[in-house]
């Protein structure tokens, strides 16, 4: 069976760990040429090297998604290297310490919104500008089950993921006729380094698991399969959708 992203050029942000890394590895196995973009160039280079060692094609790219010039440069580097940009997974995102609204800090708001919201906008802007010159493309924005639900203490994160969902659907309507598909992917709680650093108490992990009717955390690989589906031509009629892979959490 032929690989489904054969020779497609893909940009993945926040690609050095967690869901982004799982996407980079899976997409590369499916034949994609992957721009592994991360705020940490060392980590991006290390993953790109591991992908190349496994027989794939990848380059590491330094990219702070809160800086438009860096995002534009990342797209330009992929175009310079491989000539085009077919798909993107805008995955870079952060959390800040949980606290109720009245206890939250202004600096944390600005830091989180800059990465999770402004970063997705800047990424889409650069990607869409390139895709318009090629007649199409597919963009997957990392939203969250918290694009649908709330979680006490996580109001900045929730607000940022509602924003990603809204931008995703708006952009899909704006660029549908240009052949650019734009979808959101909404994971539940996934066993990633970000989650494992934020939640260490076993009782708290069990409580997180219990949010999902399937009573487990998802794996980065399961989210990568969903991202692959959206990015690939199998999803050629899907745009403006929020694909939810959350063990049933939002159905509750």
């Amino acid at each position, binding site marked *: 069976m032929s690989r489904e992203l054969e020779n497609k050029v893909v940009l993945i942000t926040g690609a050095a760990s967690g869901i982004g890394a799982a996407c980079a590895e899976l997409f590369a196995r499916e034949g994609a040429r992957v721009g592994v973009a991360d705020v940490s160039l060392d980590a991006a280079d290390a993953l790109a090297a591991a992908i190349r060692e496994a027989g794939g094609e990848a380059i590491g790219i330094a990219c702070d998604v809160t800086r438009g010039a860096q995002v534009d440069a990342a797209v330009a580097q992929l175009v310079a290297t491989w000539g085009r940009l077919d798909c993107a997974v805008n995955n870079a995102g952060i959390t800040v310490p949980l606290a109720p609204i009245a206890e939250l800090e202004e600096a944390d708001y600005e830091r989180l919104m800059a990465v999770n919201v402004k970063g997705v906008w800047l990424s889409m802007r650069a990607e869409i500008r390139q895709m318009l010159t090629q007649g199409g493309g597919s963009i997957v924005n990392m939203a969250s089950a918290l694009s649908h639900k709330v979680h006490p203490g996580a109001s900045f994160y929730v607000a940022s993921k509602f924003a990603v969902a809204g931008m995703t659907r708006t952009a899909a309507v704006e660029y549908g006729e240009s052949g650019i598909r734009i979808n959101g992917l909404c994971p539940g709680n996934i066993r990633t380094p970000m989650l494992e650093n934020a939640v260490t108490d076993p009782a708290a992990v069990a409580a997180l698991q219990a949010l999902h009717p399937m009573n487990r955390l998802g794996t980065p690989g399961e989210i990568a399969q969903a991202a692959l589906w959206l990015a690939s031509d199998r*999803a050629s009629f899907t745009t403006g959708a929020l694909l939810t892979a959350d063990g049933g959490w939002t159905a509750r």
Partner: protein
Amino acid sequence: MARLNGKIAMITGGAAGIGAGVARMFAAEGARVAIADIDAAAGTALAAELGERGIFCPLDVTSEGDWQRAIAQVEEAFGPLDILVQSAGISRPAHIEAASLDEWRAHMSVHGEGAFLGCKYAIQSMKKAGAGSIVNISSVESIRPGPLFVCYGAAKAAQDAITKTVALHCGEQGYNIRCNSVHPAATYTPLLEQYLKSAPDPAGLEAIYAGMQPLNRIATVEEVAHAVLFLASDDASFMTGHQMYVDGGVLAKPYPKGEGA
């Protein structure tokens, strides 16, 4: 690598339209497929086309006895069910002033009772298999029903509630049985071709249907079948209770308009 190697699937409404497209794609991906339909001639012909991978089961989805017999027939032929796709449906657009109570009951019966019985008996079989995936074909009309879809939209919304409750129940019981729905917009099925053919200006109506979607076209059966395949397969192992839109973006569109909207 085939995505459904060794899986046993039953597809209601499997003799035509989206159901038939799903049956062909599933067989090509390694599944054994039971085509369940009220149309014995078309169902038998498609089963024959699939060769040893296909059988036909007579099924009126509103009949509890039919469901029991059909699932027993699949278990006898292939083994317990891994996958159920519920694609059987009817759609006869009418607004609230024109629709009769009989039409309401017919839509509710096929989509509501059909999904209820299908999930009920599929779960029984899937528990023997140890895992399973149910995919209910719903519609954009359950999410944002247009004025002509009082019966169809309500019936698909009833089906959606069954999808979600089954997902929750199976998850909470630890069954490893997932249940999701797929929501297509206008798709080139025999039903759509029939609408188009009966219109005074078929090409004009086709353009109206296409223009409703930001992608400015109508879906193919294969595009919908790909979504069903994904949800049915182990690639979607963390997905349950989800309403998956395959709608060309129409549900994201703020001002839908036009005939049939």
